[in-house]
């Protein structure tokens, strides 16, 4: 999951470092007296916002303007506990209300056509960029080595017919925005809107960004990007933690809520295709997994152990499937999965679910035979395919087998479990 920077982190850490003008603010967790004092200082009008990771203009729905302490305290409490989209806020905060005569949109992202950063501006701020007509927004490429300079920014603003009194000050703000972007390892960032006061003072009044975790600059000294409440299961949380421990082999899972097939899958693309095939044919997969990337034995063992400890007791069918690997060693990965399976049975007792296996790649035969030996040792029914049978056909077969078993279970037998 990419890491996101919200407006609250921007207000607290990023904006002061790069000299970007922002409204004054205070977290909703502060003393009531301090909050009351701030509201008075700001002229009795403020905005209550949730600190939440949201897509599009989602957060706007959770924003409320307040003009007295009683409403303020009520809204701080309400907003901090109200989902925005399907996301729970980390906290709520209070921000000075900025009166504006103009709202401006700005964003920096990497453009897949020009293969460099690009800067987009519109004088119709406060709206989703996709809803702004093309003739009311402008984009320029940025030289990755030279960066965005004030002349480029002012040319862009002039081209959009920006009031001349604002061009200079906004250009300086945009250069500061670029400095922030490139110095903190961001992948995309949006300040929307800049609210320009009647006195021609711009304030960055909302911010969101995605961090490029592969960029060492994203680990900014003194800044810890907070964790946001996510709707993750215990399994996903444990696997995410395990995944983050090493770059050797992926250990990525996403829960799907299924109750049928426990899928141990390999390869970023293949695992998606297999999961889609299972879903299409009623395979009811418990999660999507991607365990490719040539994991060493210990890594694969740990991954499989975690999958089995969370889900094997509820599974109706175990599917171990991947395409024809280029790098991943099949003997190493399959031995580890087989050992994890045997270890689980030793601890929890025998099971009798079928195991469907399909794979291709380096050291295939040793891997398949190791798996076969373990399945025989555990007395589990199995079908093992080689790379000459397409993964989608194997997935389809597994889904149909599950479907058949569920039918016969309903009719005959409820005891397919340990």
């Amino acid at each position, binding site marked *: 999951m990419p890491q996101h920077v919200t407006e609250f982190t921007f207000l607290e850490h990023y904006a002061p470092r790069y000299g970007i003008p922002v409204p004054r603010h205070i977290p909703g967790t502060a003393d009531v007296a301090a909050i009351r004092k701030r509201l008075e200082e700001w002229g009795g009008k403020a905005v209550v916002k949730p600190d939440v990771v949201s897509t599009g203009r989602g957060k706007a729905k959770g924003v409320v303007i307040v003009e007295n302490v009683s409403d303020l305290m009520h809204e701080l409490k309400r907003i901090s506990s109200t989902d925005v989209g399907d996301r729970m806020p980390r906290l709520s905060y209070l921000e000075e209300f900025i009166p504006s005569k103009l709202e401006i949109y700005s964003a920096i992202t990497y453009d897949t056509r020009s293969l460099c*950063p690009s800067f987009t501006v519109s004088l119709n701020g406060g709206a989703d960029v996709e809803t702004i007509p093309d003739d009311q927004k402008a984009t320029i490429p940025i030289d990755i080595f030279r960066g965005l300079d004030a002349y480029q920014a002012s040319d862009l603003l002039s081209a959009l017919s920006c009031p001349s009194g604002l061009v200079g000050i906004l250009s300086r703000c945009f250069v500061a925005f670029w400095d922030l972007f490139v110095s903190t390892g961001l992948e995309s960032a949006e300040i929307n809107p800049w609210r320009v006061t009647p006195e021609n003072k711009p304030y960055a009044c909302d911010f969101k960004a995605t961090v490029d975790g592969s960029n060492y600059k994203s680990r900014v000294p003194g800044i810890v990007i907070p964790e946001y409440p996510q709707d993750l299961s215990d399994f996903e949380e444990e696997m995410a933690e395990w995944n983050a421990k090493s770059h050797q082999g992926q250990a990525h899972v996403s829960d799907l809520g299924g109750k049928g097939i426990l899928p141990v899958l390999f390869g970023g*693309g293949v695992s998606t295709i297999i999961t889609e095939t299972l*879903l299409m044919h009623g395979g009811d997969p418990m999660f999507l997994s991607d365990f490719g990337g040539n994991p060493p034995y210990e890594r694969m063992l740990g991954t499989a152990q975690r999958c089995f400890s969370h889900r094997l007791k509820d599974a109706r069918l175990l599917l171990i499937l991947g395409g024809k690997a280029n790098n991943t060693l099949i003997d190493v990965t399959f031995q580890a999965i087989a050992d994890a399976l045997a270890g689980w049975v030793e601890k929890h007792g025998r099971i009798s679910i079928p195991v469907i296996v399909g794979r291709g790649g380096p050291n295939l035969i040793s891997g398949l035979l190791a798996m076969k030996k373990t399945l025989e040792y555990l007395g589990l*029914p199995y079908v093992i395919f080689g790379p000459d049978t397409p993964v989608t056909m194997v997935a389809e077969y597994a889904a149909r087998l599950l479907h058949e078993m569920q039918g016969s279970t309903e009719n005959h037998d409820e005891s397919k479990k340990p």
Partner: protein
Amino acid sequence: MRAKSLKDLLKKGDRVAVSNITGREARKVSSVSQCYCGNITGGWALGRGGQRVETPAGDIPVFATFEELLRYTEPEKRPNKILVYSPPEAVYGEVKEIADHGGGIVETIYIVTEHVSIEVTAKIHQIAHSMKMDVVGCNTLGIINTRERVRIGAVGGDNPQESFKPGSVTVISNSGNMVNTISSYLLSSGMGTSFGIPTGKDRLILFPMKDFLSLASRDKGTKIIVLYVEPGGTYEHDAIEMMRQEGFGKPIVVYVAGEIAERKGISLGHAGSVVEGGKSSARAKMEAFDDYFGIQPYKPHHHYRKSAELSASLKRGIRVTALHHIPAAVSLLTDTIGIKRDFGGAKPLFLNPWFVNLGELGTHLPQKLALSAGTIPEPYKTSVTKKIRTAGSGTIRQPMRNCSHASSNDGATPRIYGYSLLELMKRSSFVGSLVLYLTGELPASDFEERLAELTLTASLTNGPGTISAQGAKLSASAGNSPNTAMIATLAAIGTVHGGNGAKAVDFLLDRFEGTDIDDPYAKHPGIGELASKTAFEFKQKKLSAKEAGTEYDRIPCLGHPVFRTDPINFDPREQVIRDFIEEQGKTNVFLEFYHCLVKALKENGSTPHVLAVNLDAAVACVWLGICWKSLRSGKMTTERAKDIAFVAFAIGRAAGGAAEFLDHQDFGTEMDMRIPVSECRALSGPRNL
């Protein structure tokens, strides 16, 4: 884009250099590539200059830096293609160095590294663009040019020729695995590949789809293009725009993955598979392709009637909704448009299980789900047969750091394979306990135990001149302690001296494979015939090898340096063992086979005399007899059976080495094993520095 055709990205004659070549993966991939096409002229890795990466096809020189590699490589071998395998943090520095020193030499850089930051990726693009170098990646797997049998990177894994047969389809894929997988599926439609290209699927794809398609349209060897596409980015829309504008002339079969995953809110594995904005979704890409092709996605059960309209659509291509429909869709294209298949014998893909054991469950399933084992295709079939023979099936693998089947100690009783050592001390012999420790089972009878003892006794010595005894004596002469002398004895045993027993077991297992012998100590009527057959085959092999002027495999454990000139030769130690077996009214089928074999070899003219069956053979036959039951039941691996024959000899000889040491220590003079300078001969003349 510098390249004007796909061949400009890789062709025969291109020279490849690999960064970080001493890394785990780069080393392995380079070794396979070198065997496949031998196009790597060098590599570099910081701090590893002067090393060499060994491959079966010859060593690859390693330099400290790219600049050094260029400096010390002859001009005609300087690399025009670079494969970057460096860690993410080092990739920018590597590309900078390539650009600084490789201008005018390097044409294409393939970056395999994952997790390269988007900022660095953009910088790489700018640097390479200014130097007129193409960059493929990051996170690509390389490229393969099947027609010219060359590859860069890991495309095709450790056996590229298996999936990539020369043909007329170019596979371009966001997933490296899919290039390999799709290419192998295509073989079922009688189509091979021209190029296999994994684009990588980072946020920025530095060699985008439209550029690859543009090159593929100009590639004479490419008649059809197969695309595997994931959500994220607008590369496909750009490609379709290009195809519309330029009137693209080659048919495309495309599979777009990720639609259901998108709907379910699942994030895909690749960094660039992130949907931002409507155009980058899987659904939008599917619709864009369908619109471009002007035909509904391929339906496997639909009867496509040939018509001008169908032909016109298929000349642009068709989308498939399942991966395994690709070969059938390609067949539809070839049949409708009139493209010749690359080879005959095509058959549709089907469920072909290699191993099946559905047990009780199978009896409740309808026929179409109760699968039975199909045919394992070559070369896997041979490999399976061989592995099954050697793998054993009694136990499963597990981490063994703190556990053992062979021994245990619960704090009170040490045990060997579960038997109390204390009881063994009281009721068994040393040899009986040793058999247990080596094989996991006690000797089946006193006869077996005595046979084992005979082999150990016979292995003690063959006189002080044997290499192993000399090892002990050298050690004593140097003033070492007894354990060092025993190690010296063991160190002087090898494949030629003492190790032949393992080869004999291997040979016997090969010969006795498929026989129905349960009891190795009972007479077996077919032994003479088996020996004659073996002698005949050996003679044929020997004659063909002589004609071809090549070497041939000798039969292990025949002949003896001392007992070799009589019409019929015997090793006296082996004779004692054989006589004992006969005295007991038994036989050892393996030893009898050996004796029949030496006679048959003399009879068919392969040898001038009846060779001696030597002690190594006797040791091997005795221990193979002891292990036979466990081997037949799959409880023991053939590897263990082979090693036991060697170990039995080594145990006897190590004890013998200790005895030689004790004798030499008591009676030898200091450094008496040293050869005087006057007796040493110089085989090279003096040279000046």
